[in-house]
């Protein structure tokens, strides 16, 4: 099944969400569209600011790199032209992470899907205008070339390569970061598996699908979460 999600945990921010997978827990908060500093102002679109805060420590070049990657993904998702000369501020707070010692590159890549998913959920919670629905997924390739989605810590520690990819519900690739030892063939298979998983996460549920593939990959977890939330918002109409 999909990761553990809670909607609107914070009262102060315009939109917020927490997402907990087997590896990371991220709390995301979104403010916007709000006033932008003159120096960051863009004449025809909204400026996007992403701040990533690690659980311990202040954050250094690694966090700045992650911020640039997440900002690029969000720019392809947000309808920035609807709010020119404003700021959309996203803050991502990591609360827990894997306890095993991972290689630096593996660590950097493995946190990306949680960050992207958390940011997306917070943007939806904040009612920001979006172009599409995005799902990010983490894949690891073991020494024997076995590909696993949402790997456990142990698999991650001993894997040959790790890949973070994000697709929209239409199958457009928005995030593609990899680390480790792999060739193009392996990557193509990884991308194929990732696309299927991302599209499945927002697939329109039908009884047959659920019966046919009872696997975790096929469960439309993102659609279910967002639909449930949207239904709660209009619940008052049903009672009048």
């Amino acid at each position, binding site marked *: 099944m999909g990761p553990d999600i809670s909607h609107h945990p914070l009262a102060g921010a*315009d939109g917020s969400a927490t997402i907990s997978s087997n590896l990371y827990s991220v709390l995301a908060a979104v403010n916007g569209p*709000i006033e932008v500093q003159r120096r960051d102002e863009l004449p025809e679109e909204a400026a996007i600011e992403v701040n990533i805060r690690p659980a311990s420590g202040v954050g250094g070049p690694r966090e700045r790199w992650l911020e640039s990657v997440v900002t690029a993904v969000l720019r392809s998702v947000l309808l920035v032209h609807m709010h020119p000369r404003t700021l959309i501020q996203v803050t991502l707070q990591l609360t827990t992470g894997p306890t095993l010692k991972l290689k630096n590159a593996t660590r950097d890549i493995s946190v990306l899907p949680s960050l992207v998913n958390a940011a997306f959920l917070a943007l939806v919670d904040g009612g*920001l205008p979006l172009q599409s*629905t995005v799902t990010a997924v983490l894949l690891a390739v073991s020494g024997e070339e076995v590909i696993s989605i949402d790997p456990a810590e142990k698999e991650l520690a001993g894997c040959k390569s790790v890949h973070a990819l994000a697709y929209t*519900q239409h199958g457009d690739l928005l995030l593609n970061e990899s680390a480790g030892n792999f060739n193009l063939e392996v990557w193509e298979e990884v991308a194929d598996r990732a696309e299927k998983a991302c599209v499945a996460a927002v697939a329109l549920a039908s009884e047959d699908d659920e019966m046919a593939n009872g696997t975790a990959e096929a469960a439309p977890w993102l659609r279910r979460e967002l639909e449930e939330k*949207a*239904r709660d918002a*209009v619940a008052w109409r049903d009672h009048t």
Partner: protein
Amino acid sequence: MATSTILLPGEVVPTDQLPKLKKGTLTLGPGLRHIPPSTILSTTAGALHVDHKKSALWLEHSNGRYQPAGGDLVIAQVHHGGAESYSCSLTPYTPFASLGQLAFEGANKKTRPQLKAGDLVYARVSKASKWDDTEIECFNSGTGKAEGMGPLKGGMLFQVSPLFARRLMMGTDKDGTSKGGVVVLEEVGEKVKFEVAVGRNGRVWVDSGSVRETLAVGKLLVQADEQGLNVEAQRKAVKKVLKDV
């Protein structure tokens, strides 16, 4: 009520859900955008709502910051006064909206309301676009009448979500039932006298005879919003609070 279609961001509205066109035009509300020639895409996650009479459709979603739209009634807070207008805030951390110094009923250079920083006014959005600063006015520039707008004295301000504010302003059906599903104000109004002003920007101003009564009314509204109380639960909450007041 039939379950409404829930759309995720970036999904196409199915053509069988579209209402019949009225004089060839279809009105799109919040949460939807038009891709020519004939695709309508959602911009957020929400329930599709269709009004066949007005040939309009929109997505309903609960959270999010208020976005100024022309014709909206809002409660603005004056931040500072300039040469010809006051700079007011409709929501925190957004650029100021400007309120003309003469945008009040019967105002001229000699007699006009003198507003200070921190004052609240009930106003209508006269101009809102993504390219310009928002403008508001405290009177109907067409008729010159205040129509209930103007400075708000005393009382207390309460914060609600923009969706709840919209529900409060939905008015009542032909048979008297509240279209927005909020009965708090009517129920309380049977025992307590109060004045209320609802701003689409998620601010509600309440003024009653005493501190206790004002607080009671305001808190009931906030409670109905935060806890998502339905009509029955609202009635119960009102009864409980009125006993103590």
